[in-house]
């Protein structure tokens, strides 16, 4: 093997050693994104540089051709490794799957195979010669078809890698200027070298400057890695973090124009990044016009906003922070928003459940209060009944004692009057017991109606006879106005009689030296025939505050005003129930000091199925 070393070859070997050093240095840091391809790039470059040096030093063609073939191992691998480096460095490593790697290395592998078998088919070089040009021994060739495939492929790879890196630099240029500048030099060097070589402006027109240029690229990246080793992964990491965040991030400049936006924000806005960046935030977020208007002039804020309506509504936690540069000049705003619809929904549900719980609790409290009030009312009723029963009993027992002690010292008439008092009190007692029984049956909802047809006038006459002694005792006048042609009605006669006895009885009992009038009329109201019994007295009247409680037995007993007033008791409550039971009603109008009018209104024909009141 004939070799002759030249200073140029020595330069190439020196560069090859540096390339190896870079490869070794990068290999040691191979866990850093881009370091492993950089190491591979260093290896390929060293192969290229060493074998180029040896090619230039070769004195005969077979030796030169051998080194050229070795050299091409480096030449074909550099563009592919460059792509690998660019992809990893710019944070898109996941793009390189098995299939894409296979496709990338296909052309270089074929190229190597063709080069080593060129003697058979001459697809790469149609002819090869060795010329001596000054200090160089130059390998000269005419290219075959595959060379152009290789060349185009290599340029495409260089172009792709350069594109990725430039794009990455542009994206992160604001923050890491030094590193970005070095990267741009690294990207530009091979192109410059190649341009010089192809344009013929190179001072050494026979010398391929490409390996020198790539050596510069390699060293620049190596230097960048050495110098910025601390920060090197940060832009990638920041970019990755930003892009993989589930929070939407948007950066606005001082005029409100979007300068950056992450993937989550793009998804939320529903547009790709290139249709967001560079546009005013108001345009981009047009569907949220209201929100934008509200926050247009706000530079600092934390808020929850709801967007949309009904079940489609989404909730976002929005934070707007001002961005200042190192001179404390306002440069723009950072907007971060997080979809908190789930939390919001959960919180809403919690709140609703809480409200329901409170409502249920409230209902329970009310139910308890009602039960307690009912229980209190029942106790008060019993106390009232006890009081009412004790009053006639006091008379009965008192007169009995009077008779026991005084039978022999009082006159016959006095004795008879005492016996009358006992009988009268006992009747009153019986009436009370009957009323308590009736109200109990009514309260239990077990009142039966025995509806028959009867003459109204007969009942009126009967009731008038019963109350007559009371009328006389209180020196009242009882007037009955009942048309003899009033006719029949169909109802429960016993209950009608009881109602009239209670109402008329009260009127004559509470009126002294007055007039009590009972007017019976037949009227048609709402296409129905009604029998109206109007009882008017000239008694003391009923205080207005007592009127609402007149027909409720427990309330009467519980009413401190009423308590202490004897007599009225249960009769009106019973009458009220009976009227309702027969489909009618009872109403009262009273003027204090002037008198009272009760109106009992009953259907002439009692409906058969009447809901039981009470």
């Amino acid at each position, binding site marked *: 093997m004939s070799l002759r070393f030249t200073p140029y070859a020595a330069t190439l070997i020196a560069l090859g050693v540096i390339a190896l050093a870079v490869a070794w240095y990068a290999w040691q840091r191979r866990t850093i994104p881009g370091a492993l391809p950089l190491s591979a790039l260093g290896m390929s470059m060293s192969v290229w540089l060493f074998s180029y040096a040896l090619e230039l030093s070769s004195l005969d063609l077979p030796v030169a051709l051998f080194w050229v073939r070795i050299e091409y191992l480096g030449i074909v691998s550099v563009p592919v490794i460059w792509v690998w480096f660019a992809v990893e460095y710019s944070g898109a490593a996941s793009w390189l799957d098995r299939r894409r790697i296979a496709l990338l290395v296909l052309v270089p592998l074929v190229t190597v195979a063709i080069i080593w078998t060129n003697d058979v088919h001459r697809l790469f070089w149609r002819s090869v010669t060795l010329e001596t040009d000054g200090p160089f021994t130059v390998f000269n060739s005419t290219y075959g078809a595959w060379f152009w495939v290789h060349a185009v492929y290599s340029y495409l790879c260089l172009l792709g890698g350069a594109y990725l890196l430039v794009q990455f630099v542009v994206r992160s240029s604001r923050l890491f200027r030094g590193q970005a500048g070095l990267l741009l030099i690294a990207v530009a060097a091979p192109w410059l070298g190649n341009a010089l070589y192809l344009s013929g402006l190179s001072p050494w027109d026979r010398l391929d400057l490409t390996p020198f240029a790539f050596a510069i690229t390699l060293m620049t990246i190596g230097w960048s890695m050495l110098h910025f080793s601390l920060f090197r992964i940060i832009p990638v990491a920041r970019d990755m973090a930003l892009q993989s965040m589930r929070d939407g991030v948007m950066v606005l400049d001082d005029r409100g124009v979007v300068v950056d936006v992450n993937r989550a924000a793009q998804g939320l806005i529903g547009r790709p990044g290139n249709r967001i960046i560079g546009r005013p935030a108001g345009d981009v977020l047009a569907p949220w016009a209201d929100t934008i208007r509200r926050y247009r002039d706000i530079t600092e804020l934390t808020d929850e906003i709801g967007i949309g309506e009904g079940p489609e509504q989404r909730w976002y936690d929005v934070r707007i922070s001002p961005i200042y540069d190192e001179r404390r000049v306002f440069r723009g705003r950072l907007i971060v928003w997080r979809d908190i619809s789930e939390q919001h929904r959960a919180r809403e549900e919690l709140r609703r459940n809480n409200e329901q719980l409170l409502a249920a609790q409230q209902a329970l409290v009310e139910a308890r209060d009602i039960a307690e009030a009912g229980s209190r009312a029942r106790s008060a009723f019993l106390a009232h009944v*006890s009081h009412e029963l004790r*009053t006639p009993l*006091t*008379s009965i027992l*008192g007169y009995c004692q009077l008779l026991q002690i*005084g039978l022999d010292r009082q006159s016959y008439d006095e004795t008879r009057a005492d016996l009358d008092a006992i009988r009268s*009190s006992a009747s009153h007692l019986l009436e009370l017991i009957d009323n308590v029984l009736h109200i109990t049956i009514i309260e239990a909802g077990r009142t039966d109606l025995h509806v028959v047809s009867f003459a109204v006038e007969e009942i009126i006459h009967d009731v008038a006879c019963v109350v007559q002694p009371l009328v006389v005792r209180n020196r009242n006048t009882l007037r009955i106005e009942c048309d003899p042609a009033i006719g029949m009605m169909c109802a429960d006669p016993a209950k009608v009689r009881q109602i009239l006895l209670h109402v008329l009885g009260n009127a004559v009992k509470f009126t002294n030296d007055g007039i009590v009038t009972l007017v019976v009329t037949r009227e048609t109201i709402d296409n129905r025939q009604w029998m109206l019994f109007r009882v008017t007295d000239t008694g003391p009247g009923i205080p207005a505050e007592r009127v609402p409680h007149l027909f409720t037995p427990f309330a009467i007993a519980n009413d401190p005003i009423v308590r*202490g*007033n004897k007599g009225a008791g249960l009769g009106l409550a019973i009458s009220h129930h009976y009227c309702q039971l027969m489909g009618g009603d009872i109403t009262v109008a009273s003027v204090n000091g002037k008198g009272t009018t009760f109106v009992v209104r009953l259907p002439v024909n009692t409906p058969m199925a009447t809901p039981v009141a009470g």
Partner: protein
Amino acid sequence: MDTSTQSGDGAVPMRILIAEDDAMNRDMLTRRMQWEGFTILIAADGIEAVHVARARRPDLILLDMGLPRRSGWEVAAQLKQDDATRDIPIIALSAYVLPEDQVRGLEAGCDAYEVKPIEFDRLIRSIHHLLAARSPGNAGSDTDNV
């Protein structure tokens, strides 16, 4: 409304005001108290009771709690606040028999509380006891049990 009967032993009859709205109860009580030797004053409602008590200053009042117009509790409270009537012993006579009714009666100023129907032996003992306690001549010599 003054019905009086000399008591058997010839002493000056004590005057008792019966305030009761139920006519038969009132009549029965009146006769029974007359037979015991008391002079009886009568009131049929609360306002009349206060009026008679002030005007006639009875030695004792039998006061129904369930009086119309002004309840027995109110009457008792009013009389006990008035210097002219404060010393008159009041026995509540009531068909309200619950313990809280009795407590209310005593709080209103009644000196004793008797329930209806009336147990006359007890009532008469109570009357004598209160009259004896009030009479200056008998002060401190009272040994009756109520």
